[in-house]
């Protein structure tokens, strides 16, 4: 399918709630991803500048449900009743900003801060898994909540630098292979730590070499391209002011090719769309050429609409014009 236009994805997104998805087993098995799913869905609608098309009633309903996802320890689970985890806590905070509702941010901030270890790394939850994704969640959430003083920023940055590899890129933990998604987590964390003292050109070269002949980006050498990497790595290039280091037009074309004629964006052309790839496809397009597609400007560090971040003084110095 040769697509050069942006399809209207609003009906697809609005319909995600209804019974059509109940036919899929995937829907039930992803019951624990409701908070994340909420963030991807509403933020995608936000990219299209159509959050106002969600009824007040629906927003209230979502806000009520979201509040119920907060546990006694201050953290959020992926859905009501689920145990707390830093990723879901981060998603919940982002979603609350999109919905314009208030959560118990004090307790959430304490939960997140308590996840930082002595070596600067962050755990996902009390069971101890460590990963750069959690560092990013920690830095992003606490910056948004103006609670950076609760953690050791310098140590957080030093841990991430240990994730750097011989090829100039970043993995998820020290010694892990370089990976496109972790580039976002590591660069995002270092950016928010205000410490980009690593060889940026080397990383930009590595990202450049991720672009495949069809224009899409792959996550690692010899792997297939995937639309979500458009966001993970292009946003990093924006933060590093190296946007020109990939062929932007080719990447745009690839994202458009991944659209489904019935709405939604898939991981690659002619595959099934899903909300995750729809959001990241739209977000990347917004960064690449938001004006052309009339998409709401999104911030590459926080992955939230700039229009929302403008109202948060604490994050001003991190927002690029």
């Amino acid at each position: 399918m040769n697509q050069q236009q942006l399809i209207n994805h609003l009906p697809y997104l609005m319909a995600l709630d209804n019974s059509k998805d109940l036919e899929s087993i995937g829907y039930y098995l992803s019951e624990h991803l409701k908070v994340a799913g909420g963030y991807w869905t509403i933020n995608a609608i936000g990219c299209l500048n159509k959050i106002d098309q969600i009824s007040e009633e629906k927003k209230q309903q979502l806000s009520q449900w979201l509040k119920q996802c907060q546990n006694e320890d201050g953290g959020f689970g992926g859905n009501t009743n689920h145990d707390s985890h830093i990723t879901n806590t981060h998603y919940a905070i982002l979603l609350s900003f999109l919905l314009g509702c208030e959560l118990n941010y004090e307790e959430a901030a304490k939960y997140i801060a308590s996840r930082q270890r002595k070596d600067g790394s962050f755990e996902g939850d009390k069971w101890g898994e460590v990963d750069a994704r959690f560092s990013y969640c920690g830095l992003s959430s606490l910056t948004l909540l103006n609670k950076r003083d609760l953690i050791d920023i310098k140590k957080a940055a030093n841990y991430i630098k240990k994730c750097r590899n011989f090829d100039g890129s970043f993995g998820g933990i020290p010694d892990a292979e370089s990976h496109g998604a972790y580039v976002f987590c590591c660069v995002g964390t270092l950016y928010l730590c205000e410490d980009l003292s690593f060889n940026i050109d080397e990383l930009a070269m590595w990202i450049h070499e991720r672009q495949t002949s069809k224009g899409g980006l792959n996550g690692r050498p010899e792997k297939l391209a995937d639309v979500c990497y458009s966001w993970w790595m292009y946003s990093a290039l924006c933060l590093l002011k190296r946007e020109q280091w990939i062929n932007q037009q080719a990447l745009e074309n690839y994202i458009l090719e991944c659209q489904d004629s019935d709405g939604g964006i898939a991981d690659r052309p002619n595959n099934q769309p899903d909300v995750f790839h729809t959001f990241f496809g739209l977000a990347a397009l917004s960064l690449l050429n938001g004006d052309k597609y009339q998409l709401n400007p999104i911030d590459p560090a926080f992955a939230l609409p700039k229009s929302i971040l403008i109202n948060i003084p604490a994050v001003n110095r991190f927002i690029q014009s």
Partner: protein
Amino acid sequence: MMHGQSKSKAETLSEEEIKLRAEKGQQILESLDYFFKVRKNQVNQPEDQLAFSELMAKLCPEIATIYNYRREVLQTKFDHLGQLLSESKSIEAYKQLLKLIQSEFMLIAILLKQHPKSYTLWTHRQWMVLRSQEIDQLITQINQDNQFKLIEAIKQEYELCSKMLDRDERNFHVWNYRNWLSSICAFGKEDEFTKKKIEQNFSNFSAYHFRSKFFMKNYNKSETILERIKTEQILGLIPLPFSRLKEETELIQQAIYIQPKEHGVYLYHRWLVGVVQPFGFTKVEKVSNNSVTVQFNRAVSNVENSFELFNNENALKIMDIKIEGTNVIISFEDQQILNLKIKIINQIYQNGSLETMVSEDEFSKFLVPSEINIKFDNEGFQFSNTIQQEYNEAINQIDKYLDENLEFIKQVIEEEKQNRFPYIQILYLLQFKLRTQKLIDSSKSKDIVKEALQHCEQLKKIQNDHQAQFLYEFWSQF
């Protein structure tokens, strides 16, 4: 989120099938509902909590809360049995502990077969290894004939990793888990294992990646590095002896020859050739009564302790060191300069290394030690640089090694004229060559830059390569 779901394969379901799916879905939701009630103690605990959580895990393998619950149950049992064991040396308790551990590892292995990339499952397995370690220690303390043998259990974990990598050689969860195991119980053999994976498939980038980590850790141990530097004349951030490096280079050249269209092999080759680069002084830019600016063959950092200054053989106190790219500006007390001498110190030779060299930031500590003499005359100043003979020999060896690799890539370019990778590669290698050339005979630098620009031109013609423009601009500054 779903990856790799082909749309053409999406089924159109009959009404009957839709009904069945909805029913199954309802069952899942009801089971989860019950699970959460159990979790919150809103209903009685099932008699067999482990069996119950196993059912839930098999039903919804991705729900972390289920494993959290299971771990709580397991921990309670471990604690209880551990206490029985400590107090009464109960054989029964001992047997139950072993059985619990074994069946848990088996359960996770079964689930991993279906979900090999699940963070949740790998975290749970890691947790089990740590608990096994604790239990093993407890058993040994009690002086029981410890048939558990943690080492055997870890060996089986390595086996599991091997099997899973046979199925998917790029699964980073497996590689990371295997790497983590070595911190519990190192079996070594990483050299053999990564080499085997490479020989199975020359484009297995994960194997090259872990090979690079293995070299950095095993050859850069601080105890041996000082000795190795003196005997092997190491001049760069070299992770292994020069002879070994050349062997490894031959291996990767073979890989490039066999799979020239793969990207990963060029990355590894580039790294190997790049780590051996000598880092040294090229010229004196400026001198005044209170400062001297020296230039190096590449951008500098961490050189605060790399210099000693003398004016007419009297030691000068260094007031400040400022770095501007390849230039270092050393400030000293204002005075009349008669005869300035600068000693460049290789911090590693001088001070040894406290940590393993894993970061490029450490590069500058490997400066080629030399002595610069600056004399003044009516026209200004003249400088001369003296490098010890062994280091000069080492630099020349590296230069030769670079030439061999340049020749090799040129051959690849001949075979692969429309492939951008060898062109990008030769530009990297020429950059290394330029840096080395500046230490040997800087008059030849222009030829290298000219050659690089020619390759940039070629690169531009291939596939409208975007990077060519930057590389062109980069080389044009020379």
